[in-house]
């Protein structure tokens, strides 16, 4: 059991504790607890199945931020089986540690991987700026995307950010312009683009690497124009309504698919992506390969046209 237990995961923790005790007793050999152990193991699976099938939007937001969740580089290393060369720098200002990327291969196919990177220790989190890119991060991403386009390699983006960094220097160096430029350029990239939300998809910071032919969300992630906390503080002037805000924003993968704002959902292992890393890596790999073979069959000019048409059709309004 992870020490990073979320509050709603408590019932599982309680059962797990009982199971551990039963096993200890069994080891001492004084009482036969075989039946109890089987019963508890079944109960854990049942409770987990029940719990994770009925998560509230806020609980999914919590899962998307789970500190044990795999991050972009974990996926890339696993998907490419280590056949990946990380590239650095935007060729203008500096290298942004919150945005990573480079060429790698899956099953002999060269792909450009780009993603926001979070850290899993306090030091790493700071080093990665909590996955909040500065303008140079978006420009680095664009540089790599253009490189992929030049060599005709498909692009995979892995989205996981609480937002573009709202700092002073970010404003000086044109955070708005950097994101805007990516939206424009990605819309017309002449290679297939697959975007996968692997954790948090916060607003323009996520969208800045999120214009793709296929936009997919992992089951326990969120994607919206604002975080539930910020939404709560703006609309209700406090953070107490974050659960209500999470409901109202319709930010889960299911909600986003229902609204036709994404193209698909990738199922996570029972208990979330962190509960079984190998399983989620395999699932994501299969999804990428399947979608790539679909996209590669489409004439590139048609693909770009379809990409633009897809985003152009988004939104709800009354004509007259």
């Amino acid at each position, binding site marked *: 059991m992870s020490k990073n237990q979320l509050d709603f995961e408590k019932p599982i923790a309680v059962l797990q504790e009982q199971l551990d005790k039963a096993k200890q007793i069994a080891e001492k050999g004084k009482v036969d607890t075989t039946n109890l152990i089987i019963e508890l193991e079944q109960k854990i699976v049942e409770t987990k199945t029940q719990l994770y099938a009925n998560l509230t939007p806020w609980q999914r937001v919590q899962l998307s931020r789970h500190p044990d969740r795999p991050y972009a580089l974990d996926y890339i290393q696993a998907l490419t089986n280590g056949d990946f060369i990380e590239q650095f720098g935007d060729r203008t200002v500096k290298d942004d540690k919150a945005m990573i990327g480079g060429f790698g291969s899956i099953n002999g196919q060269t792909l450009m991987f780009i993603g926001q990177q979070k850290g899993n220790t306090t030091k790493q989190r700071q080093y990665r700026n909590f996955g909040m890119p500065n303008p140079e991060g978006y420009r680095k991403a664009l540089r790599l995307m253009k490189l992929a386009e030049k060599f005709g390699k498909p692009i995979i983006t892995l989205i996981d950010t609480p937002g*573009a960094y709202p700092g002073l220097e970010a404003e000086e*160096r*044109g955070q708005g312009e950097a994101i805007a430029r990516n939206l424009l350029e990605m819309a017309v990239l002449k290679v297939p683009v697959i975007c996968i939300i692997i954790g948090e998809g916060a607003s323009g910071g996520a*969208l800045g690497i999120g214009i793709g032919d296929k936009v997919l969300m992992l089951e326990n992630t969120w994607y919206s124009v604002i975080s539930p906390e910020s939404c709560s503080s703006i609309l209700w002037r406090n953070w107490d309504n974050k659960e209500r805000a999470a409901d*109202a924003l319709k930010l889960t993968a299911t909600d986003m698919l229902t609204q036709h*704002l994404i193209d698909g959902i990738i199922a996570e292992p029972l208990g979330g992506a962190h509960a079984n890393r190998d399983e989620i890596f395999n699932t994501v790999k299969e999804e990428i390969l399947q979608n790539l073979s679909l996209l590669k069959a489409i004439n590139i000019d048609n693909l770009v046209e379809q990409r633009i048409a897809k985003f152009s059709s988004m939104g709800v309004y*009354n004509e007259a």
Partner: protein
Amino acid sequence: MSWFTRIKKGITTSTKEKKETPEGLWYKCPSCKHIQPSNEHEDNNYVCLKCDYHQRIGSHEYFALLFDNNLFAEINEKMTSGDPLSFVDTKKYTDRVRESIKKTGLNDAVRTASGKIDGMPAMIACMDFAFIGGSMGSVVGEKIARAIDYSLQHKVPFIMISKSGGARMMEAAHSLMQMAKTSAKLALLSQAKVPYISYITDPTTGGVTASFAMLGDFNVAEPNALIGFAGPRVVKETIGKDLPKGFQTSEFVLEHGFLDFIINRKEIKPRISQLLRLLAN
């Protein structure tokens, strides 16, 4: 859409009426407190006669300032907001929209119209801050997208006058995707080599800055406008200290390389006209 049935009467055309403005109608500048006759202030394009303070104005005024004889043909003017998420905060989104329509006489936060500027055709999209803070929801995104389509079809320059607090929260991800939609359309406009002038006014922040406002062939702004991605309050909280003087003003954004030049609104029409002429000849 027809040219002649949609003739609008704006403020600058009614010069005669203005001259008859009864004495005692005064405008007090919120910046320098100078009190000046309202009609003179209007004739000065709503710029303070003493300190150059630019009063916030809306699409009615901008159309009148730019279009020849205030003649223009508005498109998609009846489009109104849906409520994709059945959003309720302190009030229902549908009620908020209905009240805003009633209060402002506008249908949403942008109006799009074609007309002529010194005889040269142009499509102008102009935002109205009075309508839910000029926020961008589906209507704003769609109307701008269709205005760009018009520019593409007719090969006429596109002018976007931005004035917005950013994305409209009550449409959540639908609002977010309007950034993608408008930017994608601008990519096509750029490929077709049709000029795009982004005219940025006070205030322009958030998702509008991070999409069409920053994508002009020419990014121009009025003086001393607030222009940024994150709002100043958020930046202040992030860095934990006071912001430097002039932070996120037009002049600041120009100095950092993201604006082509600043236009004093007193000269909005001659400067835009000059730009269109230079590109056309």
